[in-house]
């Protein structure tokens, strides 16, 4: 193709489609610029800048939601026709899954599902920060600029189709996170947390890009979906062995890239930053990092893992090694996270270890996926792994946000975050009682007890690990350790609940009163945990996750 033809194709075919799909991210970019203008024109004294951020994010949410419904119904939804027209959605654009921006990003139901979740989460976290007032009037613009910027990076991660995009997305979600962790001015702990996070994060990013360079060089492409076929082509009939340079370099590259993603997921042994960063940062930022950056990193890991499916002997061995290593990491994360959480006295630190353990449960799904792929399994079984992971992430979004929101609201009243400060919390007014009840629901769901959403997510992941065990027995070991860990985790969550409901307060005369709006907010984000466990919404989400996951394997 000549240069003019190429330019014509890009301008007239690729660009309109790409802009249409990318519109919600562009709205977020415009919001960032608006926030910076507000600072420049000194409007932040006249009205709260948080509303600018919230308005822009809501607009982006509506945009992604329209895309989601368009893809789900094929544009045949009369009630939403005006919305579709407003966002200019067409069958050739959003209606068709496939690559956009000349193959750097990919548009499919999986990406849209994760983008929808991320923007919804951004709306909820912004509402939380407005209620707790963590960035003050002077700093609001900077805080929301960082938060929206990180979210754009995460949305890019969900659609990454190129190793360069993978690296860019990881950096784009990390760099604003470093600054957000250190956002509390003049606090020793906050600056220390940010320093530890940035030093580990920058080091791991360097290691990851070295892995990308090895993979790209050995396989001769940066495109993620082509990695597997290139590897098969290069290996031919040779078996996977440690004396074959292609095999060794590819395995090393994969390992270094997975190290980078494992750092974002705070998997053991790359978890050191997580408790420190969460303890030093405000609870709102902790909640944002624990859910959003993990969901995005899981989307990336699924895309990267799926690149290496194939029928050759060498690639199947590679998948098996990959899957079993992830299984080992999963066992370590679950066990260490749960054991370390037990001895904590600071609730944010306890929740940080709990997120490490939950990342361990979730990575079990990807481990099962890789082991199943190594045995040329039925695509339905492989899709079930991704489906379980998606359900778990959806529930995890709400239960973890509830826990962190409770920490933030109680901190605003008592100025403390240690577990002792929660003694006798339930003796407070009606709103405080509601808050305690919501915390109970969130914790029961985090443990994974039956009526709550957390149980069904965990059940789906454990079921896929059980199936993968028939390909390689090691997944049964992982499953057994996961089951044991679920029991361990009960104890430290109960320790917090005991403080809240049973232990008497140190000062009986002083009870904690939570403002009405805050109680209502927590109740609102707790409802989905219940709804995802015992109502028709559960069936809806399962069906959606099933369709989305099935699309990845068609």
């Amino acid at each position: 193709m000549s240069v003019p033809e190429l330019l014509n194709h890009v301008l007239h075919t690729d660009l309109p489609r790409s802009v249409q799909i990318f519109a919600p991210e562009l709205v977020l970019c415009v919001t960032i610029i608006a926030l910076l203008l507000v600072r420049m024109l000194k409007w932040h004294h006249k009205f709260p800048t948080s509303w600018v951020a919230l308005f822009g994010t809501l607009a982006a949410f509506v945009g992604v939601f329209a895309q989601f419904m368009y893809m789900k119904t094929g544009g045949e939804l009369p009630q939403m026709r005006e919305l579709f027209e407003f966002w200019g959605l067409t069958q050739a654009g959003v209606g068709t899954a496939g690559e956009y921006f000349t193959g750097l990003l990919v548009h499919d139901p999986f990406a849209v599902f994760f983008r929808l979740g991320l923007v919804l989460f951004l709306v909820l976290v912004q509402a939380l920060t407005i209620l707790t007032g963590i960035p003050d009037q002077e700093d609001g613009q900077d805080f929301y600029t960082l938060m929206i910027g990180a979210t754009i990076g995460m949305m890019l991660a969900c659609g990454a189709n190129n190793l360069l995009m993978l690296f860019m997305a990881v950096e784009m979600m990390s760099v604003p996170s470093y600054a957000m962790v250190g956002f509390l001015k003049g606090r020793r702990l906050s600056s220390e947390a940010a320093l530890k996070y940035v030093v580990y994060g920058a080091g791991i990013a360097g290691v990851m890009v070295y892995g990308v360079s090895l993979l790209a060089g050995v396989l001769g492409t940066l495109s993620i979906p082509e990695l597997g076929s290139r590897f098969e082509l290069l290996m031919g009939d040779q078996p996977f062995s440690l004396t074959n340079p292609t095999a060794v370099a590819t395995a090393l590259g994969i390992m270094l890239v997975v190290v980078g993603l494992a750092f974002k997921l705070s998997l053991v042994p790359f978890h050191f930053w997580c408790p420190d960063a969460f303890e030093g940062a405000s609870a709102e930022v902790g909640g944002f990092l624990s859910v959003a950056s993990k969901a995005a990193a899981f989307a990336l890991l699924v895309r990267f893992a799926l690149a290496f499916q194939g029928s050759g002997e060498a690639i199947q061995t590679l998948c098996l090694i990959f899957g079993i290593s992830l299984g080992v990491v999963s066992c370590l994360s679950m066990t260490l996270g749960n054991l370390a959480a037990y001895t904590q006295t600071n609730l944010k630190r306890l929740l940080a270890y709990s997120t490490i353990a939950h990342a361990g449960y979730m990575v079990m799904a990807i481990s099962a996926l890789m082991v199943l792929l190594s045995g040329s399994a039925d695509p339905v079984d492989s899709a079930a792994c991704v489906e379980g992971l998606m359900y778990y992430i959806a529930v995890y979004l709400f239960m973890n946000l509830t826990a962190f929101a409770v920490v933030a609201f109680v901190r605003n009243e008592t100025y403390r975050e240690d577990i002792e400060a929660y003694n006798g919390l339930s003796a407070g007014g009606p709103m405080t009682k509601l808050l305690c009840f919501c915390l109970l629901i969130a914790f029961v769901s985090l443990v994974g007890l039956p009526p709550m959403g957390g149980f069904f997510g965990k059940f789906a992941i454990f079921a896929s690990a059980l199936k993968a065990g028939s390909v390689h027995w090691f997944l049964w070991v992982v499953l057994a350790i996961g089951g044991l860990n679920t029991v361990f985790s009960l104890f430290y969550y109960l320790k917090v609940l005991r403080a809240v409901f049973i232990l008497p307060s140190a000062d009986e005369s002083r009870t904690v009163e939570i403002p009405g709006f805050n109680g209502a907010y927590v109740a609102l984000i707790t409802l989905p945990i219940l709804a995802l466990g015992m109502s028709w919404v559960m069936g809806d989400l399962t069906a959606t996750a099933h369709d989305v996951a099935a699309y990845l394997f068609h």
Partner: protein
Amino acid sequence: MDPVGLSGYLTVGAVLFVCGVICMATKRNAVGVLMGVELVLNGANINFVAFSRHTALGLDGQIASLFVIVLAAAEAAVALAIVLNFYNNHLTIDVDRAVELKG
């Protein structure tokens, strides 16, 4: 004189990578650790450029190295700001003195 082949470049890249990792692991000064990160990133850059010259990767490799340079600069800016913030609160940039958060 023979032209330098792919393996020569890769060796230089690997040496830079290892130097960077050692620097990150042993330096106690936060700025020293960040310099180690730069060495690692540049090791990757040499790989990218060498692969783009000698393998099917083509121009993609050179573009990737440009992006890595830009991102390294962005990351260094944020990292130095955080180091300065740490210095303002602790009057030191020794990473071994960041020990208040533990458990």
